[in-house]
């Protein structure tokens, strides 16, 4: 495999609905933004594309990625669609990485979108719940917020995680997004407001859960030679990893923890793993990505993380899967202030504020979650962080992580069934 670089990215503003533009035009906007940002890159240098969108039910246009391919004028170059639930965007990113790493392409476009506004929120929830076993799970009351609620109830039982700790994630991500013009739902919240918002599935309230969105994002990945030719500040992709778990939560085993280099078996003497409280696929993804990028201690060696916070609870669970803290310590990790940005006022006491910012963009909770675009959106924010160009693209330096050297992006599908982790580094 040869080195792969990210050389450009673009995002549309994520919004509840973009009725004035269809999926083709949304991707075109993000694509044109990217081309404008990388003026030396021309269409003839792009060897092919990978498209991602999650749901044919939302789109009700099969082969929609083909329509994007022709709208962007990329026919007859190679193209395909990648789909993997909530991790669709992360998988798309890694598929483009594979195309370049293998030498099949020198330059590959990854584009993703979702148009969730085409149905009402509750029909949308029904569509999403079809990504659970339709014999045994969906008919019981198929509802993803309910599934994640059951997972965090068990996390609370095993580890003493509190709803206030979960609310702190919501406060953080919504406040970060106040400085991100691409975000759908930026706002200043208190722990009390998060807890007093309408209950969705105990213990998760409306402010613990991301919203449905329309939006698109693109990334361009290239070989070292092409990256050096067309991009002033390319970002190197130094690690990719992915993992999986059984579709039915009921089938998750009670086994032993998959250890990261900085952990020992004795850390988890009595922990039955993953159960329904942890994401084994996320741990596998992290382990593989860290091995490739030669990361021994992620808390020390990462500058920031953009992770899949569809729920405040899953952000806490993911701190643990990624080894930012030990299993069981995710609640205390957010309480310590480590995943907050330094220098921002959240209205909270945060003793170790800003040690490793998580979701400086605002994450899915505040940016929105147009599924096929989400994992690529994370890559674009990470790319701008590592280039040091957040100020240019977000029109404010507030979210720029100082001296950002290495970032992790994490994309996650239904209750942890597919998960990707990718490491990006400034060069």
């Amino acid at each position, binding site marked *: 495999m040869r080195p792969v670089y990210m050389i450009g990215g673009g995002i549309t503003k994520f919004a509840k609905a973009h009725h004035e533009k269809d999926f083709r035009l949304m991707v075109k906007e993000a694509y044109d933004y990217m081309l404008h940002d990388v003026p030396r890159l021309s269409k003839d240098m792009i060897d092919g594309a990978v498209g991602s969108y999650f749901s044919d039910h939302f789109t009700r246009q099969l082969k929609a990625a083909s329509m994007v391919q022709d709208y962007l004028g990329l026919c007859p170059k190679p193209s395909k669609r990648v789909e993997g639930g909530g991790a669709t965007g992360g998988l798309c990113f890694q598929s483009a990485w594979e195309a370049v790493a293998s030498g099949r392409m020198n330059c590959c476009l990854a584009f993703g979108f979702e148009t969730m506004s085409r149905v009402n929120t*509750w029909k949308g929830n029904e569509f999403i719940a079809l990504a659970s076993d339709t014999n045994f799970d969906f*008919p019981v009351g198929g509802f993803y917020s309910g599934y994640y609620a059951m997972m965090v109830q068990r996390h609370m039982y095993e580890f003493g995680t509190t709803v206030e700790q979960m609310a702190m994630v919501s406060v953080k991500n919504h406040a970060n997004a106040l400085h991100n013009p691409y975000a759908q739902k930026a706002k200043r919240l208190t722990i009390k407001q998060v807890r007093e918002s309408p209950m*969705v599935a105990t213990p998760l309230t409306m402010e613990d859960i991301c919203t449905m969105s329309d939006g698109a994002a693109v990334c361009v990945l290239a070989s070292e030679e092409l990256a050096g030719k067309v991009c002033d500040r390319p970002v190197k992709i130094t690690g990719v990893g992915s993992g999986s778990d059984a579709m039915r939560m009921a089938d998750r085993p009670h086994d032993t923890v998959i250890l990261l280099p900085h952990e020992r078996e004795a850390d988890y003497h009595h922990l039955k793993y993953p159960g329904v409280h942890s994401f084994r696929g996320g741990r596998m993804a992290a382990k593989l990505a860290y091995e490739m990028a030669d990361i021994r201690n992620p808390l020390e060696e990462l500058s920031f993380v953009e992770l899949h916070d569809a729920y405040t609870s899953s952000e806490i669970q993911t701190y643990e899967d990624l080894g930012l803290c030990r299993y069981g310590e995710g609640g205390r990790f957010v309480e310590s202030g480590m995943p907050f940005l330094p220098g921002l006022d959240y209205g909270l006491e945060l003793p170790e504020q800003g040690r490793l910012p998580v979701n400086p963009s605002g994450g899915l909770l505040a940016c929105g979650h147009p599924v096929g675009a989400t994992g690529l959106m994370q890559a674009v924010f990470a790319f701008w962080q590592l280039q040091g160009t957040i100020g240019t693209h977000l029109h404010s330096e507030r979210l720029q992580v100082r001296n950002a050297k290495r970032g992790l992006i994490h994309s996650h599908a239904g209750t942890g069934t597919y998960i990707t982790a990718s490491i990006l580094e400034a060069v």
Partner: protein
Amino acid sequence: MDKGTVLYGVDPLIIQDHYEIDYHHSYAQDSPFFIGLTKGQLLGSRCTACDYIYATPRAHCMRCGAATAWFALPLTGRVHTFTTCHYGGEVFLKETPFTLILVEFDGADTLFLSRLKSVQPDAVRIGLPVVARFAKAPSFKVTDVWFEPADQA
């Protein structure tokens, strides 16, 4: 009679686009479980090679790949985890609030997703003993079984 097209907006032009379909959904190798529910039985599966026991059945073991055999689970278990849903997918909205539980059974290695009924949401806790109840008129769906607190038996 053609009732015409419903317009949701004119700038941009947004129309109603209706869609529905009936599938021929086969339970295939899972069929005995659903037949079992009509007889008041909760069937799990046991791996014929490694003895792993599935409380939600599958015809082949996901550990070793061997075929599994059907067996009757106990009708009592405990709440492994739970939630009360105040919203839901569109088809379930009219049933809210409802309580979902994962049930653990003595001797089984995996869990079973079901509804918990006849209980106040704030009385539900992890470890609560529960007992299976079966629909008198089966719908041949997994909802032909649900659970209630065992102390009400």
